């Protein structure tokens, strides 16, 4: 072994007092672990399923078909002239990504209890990997979206370039809430039961099956208090382009959503960092 005397890292052990440093450099040092955990998640997720990876496409498609029959055909939810299937699919994609990521990031930490009580690594890599591993599913189901855009002859606009931004917003929202919930889950296992309900209710509070245009223009920005409204409407705006944007200026709504997301995310990181020091003792 070549010992490089100058490069020996020194670690200090000391009691946890006051606010923990955010120490995001830690995460960078462990980026390969994030990569491997994400990759493990992907590898394992569809093992021993007959349909395997097809579930990635089937999930949003089945959802869309059900919604189209129920809300598009029977209840005739107004969509500003946009065919209901693509109207709902454009919203379902980010929603399913968000719901999956939030579930994973808030529950996998407790699922890794034996790792946490035995090995040191920045605990935050687990919720982060939970959020990242959904991206691949998301990208695969984008193929269906492209097919639908061709079928409904939707001409992409420059708005489409903003899609990654809204995806990123969905990711940060999932991570922000995931950090809060996963840290709480270590102490209160209620979170495991709470998350499915939360997501179910949240879905109806978010304009997935309906559009934000149902709400009077003046109050619409308030919908942005739910950051997923910003994401979902952002997706519609980016994908459906001019057809959709004519009826609706989403700007104020986005700004509210982005602000809320940042508040949740930053407070989530602080909360997580301050509680992770006791994870190994109480998990």
């Amino acid at each position: 072994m070549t010992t490089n005397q100058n490069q020996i890292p020194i670690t200090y052990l000391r009691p946890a007092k006051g606010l923990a440093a955010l120490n995001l450099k830690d995460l960078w040092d462990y980026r390969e672990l994030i990569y491997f955990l994400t990759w493990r998640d992907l590898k394992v997720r569809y093992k021993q399923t007959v349909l395997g990876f097809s579930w990635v496409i089937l999930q949003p498609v089945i959802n869309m078909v059900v919604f189209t029959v129920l809300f598009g055909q029977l209840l005739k939810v107004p969509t500003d002239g946009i065919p209901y299937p693509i109207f709902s699919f454009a919203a379902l994609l980010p929603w399913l990504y968000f719901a999956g990521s939030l579930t994973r990031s808030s529950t996998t930490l407790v699922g890794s209890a034996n790792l946490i009580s035995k090995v040191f690594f920045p605990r935050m890599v687990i919720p982060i990997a939970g959020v990242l591993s959904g991206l691949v599913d998301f990208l695969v189901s984008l193929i269906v979206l492209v097919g639908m855009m061709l079928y409904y002859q939707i001409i992409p606009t420059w708005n489409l370039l903003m899609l990654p931004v809204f995806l990123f917003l969905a990711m940060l929202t999932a991570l922000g809430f995931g950090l809060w919930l996963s840290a709480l889950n270590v102490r209160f296992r209620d979170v495991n039961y709470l998350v499915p309900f939360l997501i179910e209710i949240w879905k109806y509070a978010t304009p997935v099956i309906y559009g934000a245009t149902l709400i009077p223009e003046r109050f619409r920005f308030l919908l942005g208090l739910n950051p997923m409204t910003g994401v979902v409407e952002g997706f519609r705006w980016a994908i459906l382009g001019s057809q959709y944007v004519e009826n609706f200026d989403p700007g104020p709504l986005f700004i509210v959503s982005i602000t809320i997301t940042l508040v949740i995310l930053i407070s989530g990181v602080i909360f997580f960092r301050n509680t992770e020091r006791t994870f190994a003792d109480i998990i």
Partner: protein
Amino acid sequence: MTDIAIHVDQLSKKYKLGAMYERQDTLRDFLVSMVRSPFRKRPVSDNQILWALKDISFDIERGSVIGIVGRNGAGKSTLLKVLSRVTDPTSGIGEIRGRVGSLLEVGTGFHPELTGRENIYLNGAILGMKRTEIEKKFDEIVDFSEVAKFIDTPVKRYSSGMYLRLAFAVAAHLEPDILVVDEVLAVGDAEFQRKCLGKMSDVAEQGRTVLFVSHNMSAILRLTTETLVMEKGRIVKRAPSNEAVDYYLSSGFAETGERIWNIDEIPENAAPFRPKALRIKNEQGLVVNTIRSTEDMTIEFEYQLDDSVTGLRVGFYLMSARGEFIFTTFDTDEPQKYEEFSVREPGLYFSRCKIPADTFNDGRFVVGINASTYRIRRYFQDERAITFNIDPAGAPGMQWPEQRLGPTRPRLNWEIEKI
């Protein structure tokens, strides 16, 4: 620059035992208690506090191999957890110079659905190895683990031996400056243990610092130069290993060699036979967990008969840790004893069996017990009632530090004749 790898000063770690009863496990309990007395800072009385570590101070020089021994609950694992940053100390400070690698429980972080190859990468990353590092060592790891043929098979299909070998191989190829090893040798067969020990002494020879926790005194003696003895969260002795091990074994700090049966552990159909306790005693009559191979040992079984029993025999099975039978013996094997105890009246009994020195080889052994009447009825049986260790120091042939095959190691009379 001093060549100190680990420096800790007054390190303590407190656990609130009360938390076990009072911990708000559900949000509801927490909310209720917050509503009832929102500003009360719940005091924790002294008997609810457990100091898993108390005022631990020591320095460890770079390149030394240090053993840590102590009874279960003495704080060994907590110390390793604090040193490897899994948990923070409650007070005191520490300074670690160099990268710490833990070889804690073998297989931590393995995913059963993934193949051997995939698990090597995943586990390596969990233990803090860089991907390039893993790639570089990949072949070496596979070689060491001897599972090359199954490297692309999910590890859930592995035998437990293969699983262990692979897990150890990954951890052993970490190249940390400080290697922390917690009781990995408690598992696996003798061959595997030999290999692990070999690998660990390689690590030490490369100038790395090793902290080694084990209940296996011969491994401690073989590997380490210096040993810390822990008891109730404190370091009670630090000395050259043979001195420290002697102290530990003779001071009664060793893990108890006693098994006690509670009422609810006894099957109803055992009546009128009631097992009470099984003890392993050394030459001085102390109840111990580790016996030196050069001393006699006694296995003592205490039991109660609530009714008289005719033709009862009480005996032991001796097995190696791998489950091979070594011998079976009953207290009425001798015809004379058989006559004398043909009927046992109700009362409290002790059946003691003395096993002469130089019987067992190095390792861990299992005692099973059986109380029955021949071909009529089995009152009580426990195939793994207790285990004990044999410390081979002084056994025949110890001048060669090799693993002797076989569970016994008798001292035999050899004659060498030159003609």
